[in-house]
């Protein structure tokens, strides 16, 4: 009984500081943009405190819902390309990596922990008209005019894949690594071709990893700002850029808040759907 009492007294000192920070610098700010999203815009970035639904209605204009659809399209492409590139990689690491497989994995994910900004800048360096790719192709005599790669949808999707495939790699690797290899051997013994084995055994058994990886790639891709900003330019802007522009360029904070909340709601729906499917524990495990 006494022990229980001392425990109770220690709950607040342990979880208190973190809860306070989350409340003050995460939840309250979200509440603030919810409040401002229903306010009216004044002149020169001012906000008039009268209730309106105009900011949400305005999103239904093509110039604002198009970036949403574009972001979703790019996100689907990014997830699929990451999956196709990463699956063989994760498979190789999990099955043939040997004792060094953690070192290999580490080498593949280190760049992810360096600066996202610098990594995307590095792609600008490579993709621009006088960049490494155009230079090499020109020297080889394969092209006479530089290929226009920067500021295209292709460059944006490339940058997005480069930015977030790590999440897919980690999710796939852990599910392939945990997989019971004897089932694969059984499939071979029973006469399955390598292709059949992949389709009927390996893929279904790693379904959890595929879904986890897809969600973890989709979520940051959908709201990305740096990649479309640096590699995309104005014509291929994504929703993250439109939100930022509403705040920084047009100083229309109520409208920017509404746009941001719609983006946040989409992300939340994806996350909740995933938690319903796989449980919160799984999400916590996959995130770190």
């Amino acid at each position: 009984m006494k022990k229980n009492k001392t425990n109770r007294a220690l709950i607040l000192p342990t979880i208190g500081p973190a809860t306070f920070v989350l409340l003050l610098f995460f939840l309250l700010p979200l509440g603030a943009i919810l409040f401002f999203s229903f306010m009216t815009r004044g002149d020169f970035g001012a906000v008039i405190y009268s209730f309106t639904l105009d900011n949400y209605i305005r999103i239904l204009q093509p110039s604002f819902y198009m970036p949403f659809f574009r972001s979703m399209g790019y996100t689907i492409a990014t997830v699929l390309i990451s999956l196709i590139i990463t699956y063989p990689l994760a498979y190789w690491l999990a099955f043939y990596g040997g004792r060094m497989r953690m070192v290999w994995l580490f080498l593949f994910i280190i760049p992810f922990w360096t600066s996202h900004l610098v990594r995307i800048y590095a792609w600008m360096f490579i993709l621009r008209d006088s960049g490494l790719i155009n230079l090499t192709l020109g020297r080889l005599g394969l092209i006479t005019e530089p290929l226009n790669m920067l500021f295209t949808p292709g460059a944006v999707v490339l940058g997005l894949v480069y930015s977030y495939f790590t999440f897919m790699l980690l999710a796939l690797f852990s599910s392939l690594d945990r997989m019971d290899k004897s089932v694969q051997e059984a499939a071979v013994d029973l006469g399955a071709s390598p292709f059949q084995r992949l389709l009927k055994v390996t893929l279904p058994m790693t379904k959890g990893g595929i879904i986890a990886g897809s969600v973890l790639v989709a979520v940051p891709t959908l709201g990305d700002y740096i990649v479309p900003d640096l590699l995309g330019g104005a014509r291929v802007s994504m929703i993250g850029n439109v939100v930022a522009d509403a705040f920084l360029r047009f100083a229309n904070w109520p409208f920017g808040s509404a746009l941001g909340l719609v983006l946040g709601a989409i992300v939340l729906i994806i996350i909740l759907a995933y938690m319903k499917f796989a449980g919160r524990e799984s999400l916590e495990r996959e995130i770190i």
Partner: protein
Amino acid sequence: MSKLFKGVNATFIGFAFLFIWLPLLAIIVFSFNEGRYAIYWQGFTLHWYYELLRDTLTLNAFRVSVIVTSFTVLISTAFGTLAAYGIYKYKFWGKEILRGTLILPLVMPCVIMGISLLLFFSRVLQMPLGYVSIIAAHVAFSIPLVTFIVLARMQRVDWTLEEAAMDLGANRLTTWRRVIIPMLTPGILASVALTIPWSFNDFVITFFVTGVGTTPLPVRIYSMIRLQGISPVINALGTIVVVGSILIILAVQIGALIRQKRAEAAE
């Protein structure tokens, strides 16, 4: 068949490796290139690094980032570890809500965190943007990372040691200092290794809560890219940032390996 399969596989892995490292290697190599327009290799130079050393704006931004990251790591490691302990040890109302809320900053798009914090600081709290707003934002997105990494470590720790210490008469503080923290050290170090580059390199959230005079390095790099486009000076700065981040993570990983080896040898 098998040999062909292995050959194809090796080629594929090689390309994947190239895809991941080539962009970074390119800016590293060309940061030592003499030509300003950096199209061809024109000879080795350290000129661009000297230029960085003379650039007071960049040096100041570096200083700001070091200050921000130091405070962020200290505060978020302390708060995050305490929270992990509370979540792991105690039953309380709202625990599930707290765990769920801790996930949110990790999945919420940075732009949303950026605009919400900007609006909160400037319109609700009506305080000037600066160190406080940047560090508060960084602490908010770093705590969940620390908490989950330390929580994962807590599942692999022998908690009878804590009881033993208490039974032998150690008070709470001594138990924390002498038993709990040493047991959690691998988890805490791992979270520090991730929080340092995360905080130091964060651009999007920081961009929104940066005030005049407290520009951190990523925001400085961004404005350099916007102003100059591709330049060897940015290559040099990018090289320092990338190599620095990698060295920190490597150091902690190798340190963890050595600790592990030592612990195994001790047994």
